[in-house]
């Protein structure tokens, strides 16, 4: 065991893992977090807390993770390279561990030009790959990047993201391999809609032995409506939504699109479970947390295993 988090235990004991996601509020409301967390309680193994996603200012992911810890839930701290230099990163990581946070997901971060403060200065002192190596150094060497010995070592379970649908496709598995080399213990992928391409990606990863070196979780985001499907297809860079899903949602009555979206998500979960090397799913129900129990129930992933 590297960190002993619930998520790590679920993996090491051979279970198919499920993580959820909680987007912090654009304000200081604890109630919003309690409400969203309530839907995820008992149905996921760990909850990703996004770090100012889409570069929109939201409550600190470290603070929200701590609130989840206090609620008896296991958070997965997302940390992006956009807003912090290596000093702030290491400092926040040490603080996060002291607050009981055991999982961390290292990301580059959406560019600040997209968000609500496009006039801001960005940081990008290190990239996501290098951030992974920082967390690993803290954990495995007990040292800061500077070489300074730590007083108290943060034992994080280290995560990274992968987008099998970004270009150039041929380099995507190499990126995955690099992240594993840098120290990633688990991978959460971008939302998968193009199953054929994902199978191809996983096949290469499996052939290269990468699926033995880390736990790969397939990203699933239920489509709430045909409008959302179109938006994901046309406006989210690096996402690949085949026309098949758009046509399928278009084919049902507007009131039934949400149900159809859930049906699609359940099918996708079943499909990814069949792919060699997929060890879990990361369910990103964007502003749809209350549907998570229903989706997971239908997918046969409840109850969640109790691990010690």
């Amino acid at each position, binding site marked *: 065991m590297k960190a002993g988090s619930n998520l790590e235990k679920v993996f090491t004991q051979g279970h198919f893992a499920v993580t959820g996601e909680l987007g912090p509020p654009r304000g200081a409301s604890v109630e919003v977090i309690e409400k969203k967390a309530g839907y995820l309680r008992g149905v996921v193994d760990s909850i990703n807390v996004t770090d100012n996603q889409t570069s929109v200012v939201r409550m600190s992911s470290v603070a929200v993770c701590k609130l989840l810890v206090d609620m008896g839930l296991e958070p997965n701290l997302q940390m992006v390279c956009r807003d912090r230099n290596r000093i702030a990163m290491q400092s926040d990581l040490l603080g996060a561990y002291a607050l009981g946070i055991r999982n961390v997901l290292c990301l580059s971060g959406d560019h600040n030009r997209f968000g609500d403060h496009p006039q801001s200065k960005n940081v990008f002192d290190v990239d996501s*790959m*290098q951030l992974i190596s920082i967390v690993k150094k803290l954990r495995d060497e007990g040292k800061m990047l500077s070489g300074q010995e730590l007083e108290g070592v943060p034992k994080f379970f280290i995560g990274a993201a992968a987008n099998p649908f970004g270009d150039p496709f041929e380099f995507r598995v190499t990126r995955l391999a690099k992240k594993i080399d840098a120290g990633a213990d688990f991978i959460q992928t971008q939302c998968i809609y193009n199953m054929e391409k994902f199978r191809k990606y996983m096949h290469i990863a499996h052939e290269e032995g990468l699926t033995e070196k880390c736990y790969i979780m397939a990203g699933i985001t239920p489509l709430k409506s045909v409008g959302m499907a179109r938006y994901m297809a046309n406006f989210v860079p690096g996402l690949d939504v085949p026309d098949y899903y758009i046509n399928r949602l278009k084919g049902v009555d507007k009131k039934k699109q949400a149900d159809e979206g859930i049906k699609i998500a359940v099918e996708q979960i079943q499909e990814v479970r069949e792919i060699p090397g997929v060890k879990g799913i990361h369910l990103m129900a964007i502003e749809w947390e209350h549907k998570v129990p229903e989706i997971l129930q239908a997918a046969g992933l409840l109850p969640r295993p109790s691990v010690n």
Partner: protein
Amino acid sequence: MVVAERKPIEEILAMVADFKKVLLVGCKGCVTVCCAGGTKEVGILGSALRIARKKQGNPLEVVEHTLERQCDPEYVDQLAPMLAGNGFDAVLSMACSVGPQFIAKKYTIPVYPMLNTTFIGGALEHGVWAEFCQSCGNCIIHNFGGLCPIARCSKSLMNGPCGGSANKKCEVSPEIDCIWHLIYDRMVELGQLEKLRPVFPIKDWSTSRDGGPRKIVREDLKL
């Protein structure tokens, strides 16, 4: 070269609103090459200012002059006779931002920048310039097929394209090439793709602006 572009005329007119007589100084260096602040652009801006102020019924006298360079004291010194007792209210510099600072250092007169100094780059075609260097002070482009991910990747990523790379374009704008896609293509072309496989180590930014304002001292050249 240093690439710059002229400030909007409205901004310049606001800067000079209270003045009656100004010295407009161009530069024959980089800003002449990028068509922002050479003799020709000095002439165009000088005329534009005179016409605009004449229309307002508040004429502005603009004396035009272009120096060999504004980033060398020996040329900036040449302004001394012009600025001595000629009643100028201000100097308007059409150099990159080094020029106005050199003039301000030498003369006790308000100096205004007429250009926005934009980047270190080159011409892609006639009338189009792009950024190629962020002057990080420690060139690493040979690791990336001769292309710079620090200046040309929106996130300065050193280990490959982020998840937002699509159809060879950057997630920030379809106008921006994904430099990582270009690096990938170039390494394939060179038969050196395996060089991108190791994790590229964390960069030392102390040679960059992050280490404080920089200075180069060449003892062999000092007089």
